[in-house]
């Protein structure tokens, strides 16, 4: 914290902080306000005497209602949840095990393998979806949740592996050696000692993986086609933008409702998450 006179603190701390928070939260406010505005207000031209972009005088739940009744939004939410959870669990499992091996086991090419995994993470999705589409067609899993559950780990596993590898390296290896002398096998030492200590790291990797798969757009757009299979980001944009007509109210309602689970997950694990990002075990 900056020490000094009150006004200095305001000038150098609270003011920039306030502007930062304002900038961050404005899109959410915009989403909320657009959701609640009636169409009449929403499509008012800028030179109309009652033009009011930043607030609404007659809030309405019409957009939310139409989103829930006229589209398959509930199904999309369910699909997204299922796919994000499954992809996260798969990636977390592989990432934790691979990260542990890369951080702890001494084997040939360990360093090289770590770098190779990282490089796969750098291959852009917009390039990778082309060969992946071919594979998905080959295995006949297009337009099913499996198309995403099995392709999301292609970018989630490298990510989780690297995050976990870094976290495992902060845990003193004496803890594990001590456990092994105490009578634990390598596997038991990992399960009873290392994993509980690495919990903050595992949680942050999980939250990140969940968020990434929840928001993922391009794979979902390419690999799914029937409306009842879609995820929230794809469903909302493909069903509520018809030609050049944007149903802004419902679009924003979809975005708002779609971001709630992620916000919920973050707020629930925020403490672990911060510990996981800043790392390290003491004692």
């Amino acid at each position, binding site marked *: 914290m900056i020490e000094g006179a009150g006004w200095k603190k305001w000038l150098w701390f609270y003011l920039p902080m306030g502007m930062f928070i304002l900038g961050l939260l404005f899109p959410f406010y915009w989403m909320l306000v657009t959701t609640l505005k009636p169409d009449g207000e929403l499509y008012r031209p800028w030179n109309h005497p009652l033009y009011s972009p930043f607030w609404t005088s007659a809030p309405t739940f019409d957009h939310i209602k139409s989103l829930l009744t006229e589209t398959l939004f509930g199904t999309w939410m369910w699909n997204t949840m299922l796919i994000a959870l499954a992809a996260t669990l798969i990636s977390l499992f592989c990432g934790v095990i691979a990260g542990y091996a890369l951080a702890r086991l001494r084997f040939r090419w360990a360093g090289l393998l770590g770098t190779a995994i990282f490089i796969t993470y750098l291959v852009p999705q917009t390039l990778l979806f082309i060969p992946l589409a071919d594979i998905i067609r080959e295995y006949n899993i297009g337009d099913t949740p499996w198309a995403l559950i099995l392709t999301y780990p292609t970018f989630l596993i490298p990510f989780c592996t690297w995050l976990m590898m870094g976290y495992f390296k902060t845990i*003193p290896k*004496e*803890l594990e*050696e*001590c*456990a*092994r*002398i*105490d*009578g*634990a*096998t390598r596997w*038991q030492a990992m399960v*009873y*000692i290392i994993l*509980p*200590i690495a919990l903050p790291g595992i949680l942050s990797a999980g939250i990140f993986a969940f968020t990434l798969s929840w928001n993922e757009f391009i794979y979902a757009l390419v690999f799914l086609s029937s409306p009842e299979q879609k995820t929230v980001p794809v469903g909302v944009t493909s069903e509520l933008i018809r030609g050049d007509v944007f149903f802004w109210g419902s679009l924003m309602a979809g975005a708002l409702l779609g971001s709630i689970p992620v916000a919920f997950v973050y707020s629930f694990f925020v403490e672990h998450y911060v510990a996981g990002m800043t790392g390290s*075990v*003491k*004692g």
Partner: protein
Amino acid sequence: MARVLITKLNKKYDDDTHAVKDVNLEIRDREFVVLVGPSGCGKTTTLRMVAGLEEITSGEIRIDEKVVNDLPPMDRDIAMVFQNYALYPHMSVYDNMAFGLKMRKFGRDEIAKRVREAADILGIQTLLARRPRQLSGGQRQRVALGRAIVRHPRVFLFDEPLSNLDAKLRVQMRVELKRLHERLETTAIYVTHDQVEAMTLGDRVVVMKDGLVQQVGEPLELYGRPANKFVAGFIGSPAMNFVDVSISSDGRWAEAEGLRLPAPERVRSRSGQRVTLGVRPEALSVANGADANLADRSFATAVDVVEPLGNEILVNFRAGGVPMVARVDPGVRVKAHDSIRLALDPERLHFFDAKTEAAI
């Protein structure tokens, strides 16, 4: 209770560093053996090979006649205390101590009994419910010890367990460790870089350097009859003074610039050669000019720096062209730049070969 036998033990790492070279050691039943040496001398690697944490390149380790080379750590029936304590941060003190017993499928009552017993010995009964991060350094150290002793292992291994404590606590824990060993009567191997710890704790001390054992012996044996220049310089504080001298052609005198001493019998054969003379600071005393007996083994010099420590005074001076230290009685009044006459105790002179550095 166990005997540990190490034969021709070698450790080579992948990058070709040869950390431990042909180490042979016998650690007797109930003995407390300390491995000591500067960092990188291979003492910790040796200990870790006994623990099973490091693979053995060649050689053999036996615990009670059984070759343990390929046994995993858990099957060697040993306990180890680490420098950073390695307490499990997510477990209470009780669970930390009970972990090894749980892994070995001891009954709940037996576990509770043994943990209480160990806690009583170490005086940590009131800490059992706490987490490691709520403990002070000394308390953590005790818990780490407790975790080792509840197991009733055949051998204790200590890897610089006191290095993370402050000086005062270290002295206190040193005494406690010694008492603990007397009470438990378990074979122990202790690694440290601190020669004072080695001398106070060890029944026998093993001095290592560059992966080689330099000398094995009881503390006073190492101090009184060091096998070579390295051991002589490593054991004892302040360290032994070394000065290159030449033995006169008739073999009767050892001489250096401003220094001339009668050479003892054992170096007479070296007449005309250069050897290294070793003098412990405590083998020097301030000579009163009147004493005629001192005449042929004393020398004059000027005091450089005086370090009054209270129970003794360290006098720094130059002789034979090198800086030296004398440890003198606190009653002696000396100031920097004073002229002074110092006498050597002829019984406590050490001579080392100038090339091999072995004791003569």
